[in-house]
């Protein structure tokens, strides 16, 4: 001990202490973090809600209140249903950053699907709401793509653009592009109406309607979409196409005209 205290003023002492502290923290994390995961994996169904509650207390309660009743920082989650939780957490929108702008953006999801299911089970236990849709509900079997296009243009295109490329709203809010959004999340978004998007419940937009819309989006806005026109310029319609035409088309013509006139044809270059 005396030896130790004798060296406490050594120039490297602070560094040693720091390293020790870091090792300690890391060690503790290594001990606890896998333990949590292991627990989650082998949780029995009856304990799912209990586990969800624990996750909720850590990740959500600071804004949505300890019982999901909502606070000034976040809305009540009673009755939003499991579908809303699955959408918000699996797309990384929740938990939101503390200093959020006009709209909570999509970001990397930090929960495993098992944890999301536990959270969803807990929130669903607070009040009845839409449940997580099954593959059968959003899968492509039996969908009518043409009808889906009609429904999309009537209900969704005003904000998300004709092929789901997204668009601007007021005060920095926006309708995100639907490219790469999974069918399940599109279904959940229609059902629950996340953030400023209105909801389209089954009573006004039936299950079959939603299936059709998802099939339409898969046909017009996915990596397998055929684009006979080539360069889509963002698929935003006449604005980007006109801008491209004016800048590059007309600009190219002007550049050629300037180039032709600037080159003298005289034998003696001036």
């Amino acid at each position: 001990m005396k030896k130790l205290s004798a060296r406490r003023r050594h120039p490297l002492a602070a560094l040693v202490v720091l390293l020790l502290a870091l090792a300690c923290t890391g060690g503790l994390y290594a001990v606890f973090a896998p333990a949590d995961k292991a627990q989650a994996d082998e949780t029995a169904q009856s304990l799912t809600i209990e586990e969800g509650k624990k996750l909720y207390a850590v990740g959500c309660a600071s804004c949505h209140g300890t019982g999901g009743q909502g606070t000034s920082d976040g809305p009540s989650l009673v009755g939003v249903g499991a579908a809303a939780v699955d959408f918000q957490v699996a797309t990384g929108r929740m938990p939101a950053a503390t200093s959020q702008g006009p709209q909570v953006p999509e970001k990397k999801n930090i929960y495993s699907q098992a944890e999301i299911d536990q959270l969803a089970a807990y929130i669903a236990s607070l009040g009845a709401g839409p449940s997580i849709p099954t593959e059968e509900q959003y899968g492509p079997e039996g969908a009518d793509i043409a009808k889906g296009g009609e429904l999309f243009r009537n209900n969704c295109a005003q904000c998300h653009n004709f092929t789901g490329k997204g668009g601007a709203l007021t005060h920095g809010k926006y309708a995100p592009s639907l490219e790469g959004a999974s069918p399940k999340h599109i279904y959940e978004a229609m059902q629950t109406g996340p953030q400023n998007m209105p909801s389209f419940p089954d009573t006004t937009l039936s299950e079959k309607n939603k299936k059709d819309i998802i099939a339409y989006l898969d046909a017009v806005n996915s990596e397998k979409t055929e684009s006979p026109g080539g360069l889509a310029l963002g698929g935003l319609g006449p604005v980007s196409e006109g801008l491209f035409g004016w800048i590059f088309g007309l600009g190219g013509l002007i550049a050629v005209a300037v180039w032709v006139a600037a080159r003298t044809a005289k034998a003696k270059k001036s």
Partner: protein
Amino acid sequence: MSSQDIPEENLPAAQSAGHDEHGHGAVSVADDKHPFADPGLPPHEHRIQDVDERAAKRSERSVALMFTVSMLATVAFIAAFVAIPVDKSVYIWPLGHISALNFALGMTLGIALFCIGAGAVHWARTLMSDVEVADERHPIEATPEVREKVFADFSQGAKESALGRRKLIRNTMLGALTLVPLSGVVLLRDLGPLPGTKLRHTLWSKGKLLVNMNTNEPLRPSDVAVGSLTFAKPEGLEEHDHGFQNEIAKAALMIVRLQPDDIKDKRELEWSHEGIVAYSKICTHVGCPISLYEQQTHHVLCPCHQSTFDLSDGARVIFGPAGHALPQLRIGVNDEGYLEAHGDFEEPVGPSFWERG
């Protein structure tokens, strides 16, 4: 085309000393009337093609080559049109996957047109004469003698016609000339008939059910959740009806449900049913379909010119060029529990017009 190809005696510098074949415009000296001397045109300089026949031949061949390429491109256009199937897709960097036919037709036609233009420009720049030509301009007015003669002829003609004396002829002629255009004016009648009260009325009337445009079923209050957005048409209007587009362009309805406590406008609350409000979907600015609804702020945004309406406050305009609030449809519930209209819109839907008031 380097200058080494050109024989020394043909160079412009050597030439200008010898024979000067082109005039340099009128050269004058300063005098009292014209205080600045006119320097005339600068000495003409020759192009390589003017002094070197081999260069001129090369230019000729270039022009002919471009015209030939254009011909070949046109042939290729026709061949592509015949040969390439319409649904064939190819990958071309940087355009990505693109219809082979579109690409081939566009490229060949583009090359054909461009080569005609490029050939013509090259021809004009290298082979056609580029000698500066001065073209004198003169006053366009007639000489005093001609003017005098014209005025004399005119007054003599006026005297001989005796229009001032024979008043009957003059007056009837004026009458005939005045009436003739009336035939044209009368024909304008066929542009009508006038819209009458069409702009003030829609298909909505008392007792008409609100039909969901997605499912084609009448709506019940329980179908419409808070925060949801639904579009409705009047009962009896079917998509395949003649004139469907004309009617829906005026009758299109946007239905949202608010918490009754959130509704600030007294009339809006009165015209709603348990917080369900029905507003015209047609923007009052220039009539775009307006349905960018933000369910948390209750704002509706028009995609055309960003007019924003507050659906919780009588749809009043809170931003943008729209001049009127969106018209609200008064709704209620019939005996069978379906949502129904309590009449037509009280004011004309859509953009303002001259007689709107």
